[in-house]
């Protein structure tokens, strides 16, 4: 049977039902999706939602330094008197954006390498996969940390460092998929018809190999957010006025007994954001990968 990525949606009706039933049976997915939507709304409307938008930057308020949570500052004020609520709200524009950029870069490197390795095979496959093995021999946070430690501390460095640690996972994922697609009859038919390799890769291998990314990428957002916050916490990422949650936690560390609010709220924001994306990713996997859904 010839499979096409653009096959008419014969299965549209039952699939819609399956989706709806899956959604109802999967409260975790609903909660995750709702939270992610909420975070996106907060990020988009940050200037309207933040009580003191200027506090996301270099503002200083000497008279509110380290003020505990109150009606004026719901999350309290930090070591230079900035409103923590405003900074936490603006933080939704930092970590999730870094995660998006990291995952785009990691896919841009990992997917082509995986497709080439899986489709062409031979020595090139061997070479790419051995290099991938070496990168996979590092826990991702370790490699990102080593790289970020030698690069100048900035969000750009953090993005590069994490992407450099993340791509091999996609190469391995896509390679397996591409290798199995390469053996399918319609690809062989193209080869016999003399379709160019380039065209085969772009029209047939690539579109049929990237479906696992639909499951993997959402699952990875939470991990990248945690990694980026960890690097910022160690002082390797965002630098002061940037309202990065990891950095805020690190800065609050020296004040946190008794001024707990400096640490509690930014960390809670990291937890909630990573939790939202992980719930969403986990739920999507159950929904899209029937082998793994048991309900």
């Amino acid at each position, binding site marked *: 049977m010839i499979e096409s990525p653009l096959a008419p949606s014969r299965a549209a009706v039952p699939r819609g039902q399956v989706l709806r039933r899956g959604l109802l049976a999967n409260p*975790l997915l609903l909660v995750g999706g709702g939270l992610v939507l909420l975070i996106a709304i907060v990020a988009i409307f940050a200037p309207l939602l933040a009580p003191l938008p200027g506090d996301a930057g270099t503002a200083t308020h000497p008279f509110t330094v380290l003020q505990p949570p109150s009606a004026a500052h719901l999350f309290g004020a930090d070591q230079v008197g900035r409103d923590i609520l405003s900074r936490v709200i603006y933080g939704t524009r930092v970590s999730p954006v870094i995660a998006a950029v990291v995952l785009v870069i990691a896919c841009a490197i990992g997917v082509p390498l995986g497709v080439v390795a899986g489709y062409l095979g031979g020595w090139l496959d061997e070479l790419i996969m051995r290099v991938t093995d070496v990168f996979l*021999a*590092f826990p991702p946070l*370790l490699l990102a940390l*080593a790289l970020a*430690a030698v690069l100048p501390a900035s969000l750009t460095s953090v993005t590069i460092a994490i992407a450099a640690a993340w791509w091999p996972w996609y190469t391995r994922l896509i390679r397996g998929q591409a290798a199995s697609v390469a053996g399918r009859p319609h690809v062989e038919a193209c080869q016999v018809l003399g379709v160019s390799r380039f065209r085969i890769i772009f029209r047939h291998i690539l579109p049929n190999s990237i479906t696992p990314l639909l499951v993997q990428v959402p699952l990875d957002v939470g991990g990248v957010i945690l990694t980026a916050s*960890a690097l910022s916490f160690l002082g390797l990422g965002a630098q002061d006025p940037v309202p990065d949650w990891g950095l805020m936690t690190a800065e609050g*560390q020296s004040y946190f007994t008794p001024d707990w609010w400096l640490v509690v709220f930014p960390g809670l924001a*990291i937890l909630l954001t990573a939790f939202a994306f992980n719930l969403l990713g986990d739920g999507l996997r159950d929904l899209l990968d029937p082998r793994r859904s048991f309900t």
Partner: protein
Amino acid sequence: MLVFVARRISLAILVIAGVIVVTFVVAHVVPGDPAATWAGPHATAAQITQARRFLGLNRPLPVQLVSYLGGIAAGNLGTSIHTHRPVLSDIATAAPATLELVITALLLAITFGVPLGLASARRPGRPADQVIRAGSILAASMPVFWMALILQLIFSQRLHVLPAAGQYSPGLLFTHPLLKRTGSPVIDALIAGNWPMLGSSLTHLILPVVVVAAFPAGLIARLVRAQVLDTIGDMHILNARALGFGERQIFSRFAMKQAWIPVSAEVALLFGYSLVNTFLVESTFDWPGLGSYAAASTTTLDTPAILGVTLFVAIAYVLANLAVDIVQAAIDPRIRLR
């Protein structure tokens, strides 16, 4: 079996060689100047040049790579720019504390993760399952550095039930001196029969271990659930059911038996992850391990130290994976054929 072991070992050596090259490349894309750091903030230009020559940074890159490889083969990871001591001896001093922390945490994670996973698989989709799943996802979403601070705040600053930092109460050293043998206070105190010290070191271990164990416990629970649900419909399970075994036995004895293989592979992965997580946790608890050393060397731009720790952790990770692969192949002959 011998062929399998030989192949796995040679593959591991190849990967380790690659890991060394990667760390070396990372070290030499550095825009900062380690020689200037080494020489100190007020060094003159001539002193920095001297330092560069002393550290061998003025030689061409391939020459540096060869001498780096030769050094590693001889057990020399270079000299820490910050402590001015050999990196390897710094690592050897710090490693026992970290291994104590990580190994205890993994044992704790298995102790809690496996039963939770089994409980979750008993009634998939029911409230208990949803709660356990949400809990394991929450554990995977926890920023460890924050969890460390929060637990410290609650249990030592507010409730005063657990110590905030260190491996034991230093005051005890006067009344119950501790003889250093393994470098792990718990084991050393146990060997010496030093009970007050054992108690103190165990209570100091609780908070950091819980923080490091949270993520592995969640992951193990999820893995056990998925594996058990995968095999629960199999013939041999039906067979066991037909023989009249109770549900508890069916799950924990028959279904779990097969799950141990992927779980042990996961534990090897988690060993590497947890070693890195100590970088974020140890300094909060004043734990004198690799994590504190690594965190301190990142703030001082101590490249040889950072790379030494990176290399050490990556190699430990490769070796843990190798060990699990070999043990699995010894248990399950099917694996040897892959």
